[in-house]
């Protein structure tokens, strides 16, 4: 019997190695795998490259991971946030590397990694500072930048519901980076609010087929726990 459900956050994060590239889902506070990030802090892996949209808020979650010196490099579109103190301090002091990637290019580079595409061309950032160090090329007289796939060793994602195959259903705007990150990592770990019986999830509602998911852990805290201020 296929059963991707693990019983604890520690089990979910077992084996994450030093030096890993970790894709972290979420946009703002929605769809953020906050319990898995806490678990990663606990788990101990260091020298990480974190790929996510924002560079952390306040002193919790990813910001805490950075403050502990466990993140070597951040790849993100938006390092600013409502309270970016940890990142900005580390960055000013040269203790963290930053790669800024336009948000759509970030999503597409991750998808490319999941879809077997080593590189693609995009008009985004053509002619700007973010084109520097990249190949540019014209197609039909228009300038494009070549972008490379961005795979992860690990993806930490969040979803609303899962079954034992690892099929995932998202809620509201909670999909965001989660489905594409699930495709692009060697080890995809999902925290979910609800576990359903196999067959209970509607085949057309499943946005992430379980094929992309390695481990699922339930973190049921009801429907109201999320506060919308973060990020």
């Amino acid at each position: 019997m296929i059963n991707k459900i693990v019983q604890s956050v520690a089990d979910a994060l077992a084996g994450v190695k030093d030096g890993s590239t970790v894709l972290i889902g979420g946009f703002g506070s929605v769809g953020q795998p906050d319990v898995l990030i806490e678990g990663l802090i606990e788990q101990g892996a260091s020298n990480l490259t974190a790929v996510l949209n924002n560079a952390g808020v306040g002193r919790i979650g990813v910001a805490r991971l950075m403050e502990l010196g466990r993140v070597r490099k951040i790849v993100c579109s938006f390092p600013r946030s409502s309270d970016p103190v940890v990142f900005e301090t580390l960055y000013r002091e040269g203790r963290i590397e930053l790669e800024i990637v336009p948000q759509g290019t970030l999503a597409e580079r991750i998808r490319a990694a999941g879809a077997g595409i080593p590189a693609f061309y995009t008009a985004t950032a053509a002619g700007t500072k973010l084109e520097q160090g990249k190949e540019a090329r014209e197609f039909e007289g228009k300038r494009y930048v070549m972008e490379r796939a961005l795979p992860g060793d690990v993806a930490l994602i969040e979803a609303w519901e899962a079954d034992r195959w690892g099929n995932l259903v998202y809620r509201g705007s909670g999909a965001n980076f989660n489905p594409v990150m699930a495709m692009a990592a060697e080890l995809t770990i999902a925290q979910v609010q609800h576990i359903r019986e196999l067959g209970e999830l509607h085949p057309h509602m499943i946005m992430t087929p379980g094929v992309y998911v390695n481990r699922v852990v339930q973190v049921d805290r009801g429907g109201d726990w999320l506060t919308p201020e973060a990020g």
Partner: protein
Amino acid sequence: MPFTRDQMAARLADDVPEGWCVNLGIGIPTMVANHVPPTREVIFQSENGVIGMGPAPAKGHEDPWLINAGKQLITLAKGASFVGHADSFAMIRGGHIDLCVLGAFEVAENGDLANWATSENDTAPAVGGAMDLAAGAKRLWVIMEHTTKDGRSKLVERCGYPLTGLACVRRVYTNLAVLDVVPEKGFVVVDLAPGVTLDELRAKTAAPLHTN
């Protein structure tokens, strides 16, 4: 009397026809949605994968799983749908957004846009989805104050700040005027705020102004 921010947003909203799919940036652009009358159906897309946002939620009826690109709580319009980030930006980058409205630090007369980084800034600049929108939307309108707090014109001959996109701005809505950006020509005045004269506008604009 120059336009207030609300009046700027309302002026822009007047120009959005029924049926367009519109992406609004953070800040003044977000205010545009409040000025489109409910009788005129416009589809508001948010980069985090929401297609068809409704008005802000009533107190006590917020859903914490529903936010827009500015991380504000939202509601869904009837007909709304969701996609993930790769599909949302495929929509943006593939030319399926009829209109994107962004703020700016500078707009140049050739349509260049600078809105993500300033050289003064010692921290890491944050680009978000602005470059994708600038490169991908069918049309890009900028809404911004005409001048900086210390009185410098934000309409310029050539951008001094790092570019977000090249030759992408089609129209600019400021507190003083509405201006088209016309290829091979530059800024063309469409409309002046009440009481603002063309001479006054010229004095506050660091680029040539044309009239039709």
